[in-house]
């Protein structure tokens, strides 16, 4: 396999990583259909290498007006650290909550409905992010652990958000995909941001993946 430069990825490595994501998301959506009775279509993921400092601006450009968005944010650790961002426009958020509420068996306290909507969104986000990241880790022979997710508004996705997680000048892998709930007008964006702290480990995992097909 090419790409012996230790500080960056070769084209082949990027293609392999993209292929792994594609397989992972395909498996994740099939398993999600079984677990939550909802078929989620995940588009072919696009992969970018970025400087951490440019992340929030990049996401802002990708999504458009962040004002009406809510974002479920969840950090995870495996061989490298990462953060997943699941962004829903307001309308999709409400429909998603209604859909999951129908399928749950809980009473809702109307005094706290806003707060409970956020909690519900956190649970939905946890399932979707957990499925995608775990499948990705499985293919890379990695084991990941997660911290509890939280909800932020689009406006809170500032530079400070990035600075708390990655060095400003550090390079990160950004993976974006569009997800859609089959049969409903309901879609959102999923971004996975991984640090390149352990680029060697990732390169080894890619090599191992590639070897299966040699």
């Amino acid at each position, binding site marked *: 396999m090419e790409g012996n430069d230790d500080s960056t990825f070769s084209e082949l490595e990027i293609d392999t990583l993209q292929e792994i994501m594609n397989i992972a998301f395909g498996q994740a959506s099939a398993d999600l259909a079984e677990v939550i009775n909802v078929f989620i279509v995940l588009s072919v993921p696009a992969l970018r290498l970025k400087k951490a400092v440019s992340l929030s601006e990049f996401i802002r450009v990708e999504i458009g007006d962040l004002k009406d968005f809510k974002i479920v944010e969840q950090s995870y650790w495996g061989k490298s650290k990462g953060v997943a961002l699941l962004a829903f426009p307001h309308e999709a958020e409400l429909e998603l909550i209604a859909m999951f509420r129908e399928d749950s*068996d*809980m009473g809702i306290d109307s*005094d706290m409905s806003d707060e409970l909507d956020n909690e519900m969104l956190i649970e939905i986000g*946890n*399932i979707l992010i957990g*499925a995608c990241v775990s499948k990705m880790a499985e293919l890379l022979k990695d084991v990941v652990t997660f911290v509890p997710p939280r909800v932020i508004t689009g406006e809170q996705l500032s530079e400070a958000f990035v600075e708390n997680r990655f060095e400003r000048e550090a390079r990160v892998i950004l993976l974006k995909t569009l997800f859609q709930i089959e049969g409903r007008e309901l879609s959102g964006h999923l971004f996975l941001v991984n640090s390149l702290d352990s680029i060697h480990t990732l390169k080894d995992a890619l090599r191992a993946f590639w070897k299966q097909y040699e």
Partner: protein
Amino acid sequence: MIYRQVFDVLNLGLVILDEGLHVCYWNRWMTRHSGFDCENIIGSPLLEFFPDLDTKYFNRSVRSVFKFGSFVFMSQKLHKYLFKFEKKVSGFQHMQQSVTMGPIKDKDNVVEHVFIVIQDVTEMAAYEKKLHNMNIKDGLTGVYNRRYLETRLKDEFDRHKRYCHALSVIMFDIDHFKSINDTFGHQYGDFVLKEVSATALDTLRVNDALARYGGEEFCCILPETTISSAMMVAERIRKNVESQENRFESTMTSAKVTISLGVSELCEITDTHEMLLKKADDALYKAKREGRNRVVSMTLF
């Protein structure tokens, strides 16, 4: 198991299940709160001991841990508790719990077991509830305060815009309240405020919201209610206040209490929630001008 020495002194519940939901581990905290000894429960299906756990949510959560190897964070705010343990603290009947579920993988990375960690957060939830209530309720009458009313009205207004459901409000105040205060004293005035709000509350539905707007003025938000239904509700409140004379008898004194009410419904030309309130308030003043102890509605202007 050597780690048992640690797990049994934790101030947390720890349960380990296999894929068939048989209990593989049950720490001492769980024994203390459930009353089931680990000797009895280990090896048995968990649902035999806790049939209440056979819910869509619980099954989905366990399935997702086995399927994805991911974690489930169960919020107390949303679910209150997972295991129904008795604990009576400030209005709670059962122990409030924050729960984490996660995978235990074998050396080949296959999820063989799921662990469940249960944290008792009852005291914290009780403080939070108390603070939340202080923030949204009126200290004297116990109905919602004006801050809550304004937020709720805006939410209902947004909902109306989205789903086009009807929305009405009733504004009412106690007739000659100043004179009640001046004649019988402020303590009796406070008593009247409490009794009037309790009477109105008894008349309203669960989804309606009653708030003290200020002084002796109250406001009810009636979601999914047309003006004709809101008029009927208003008339029922008026009658209940007027007829339940014994409700206003205190050890101090007794007065004849009546209220005046103004009703309005959101329509296409009332394009803000403030305008809806203003219409109800105008109707209330019309009721006052027309002789008090009556209901007046404002529809189109």
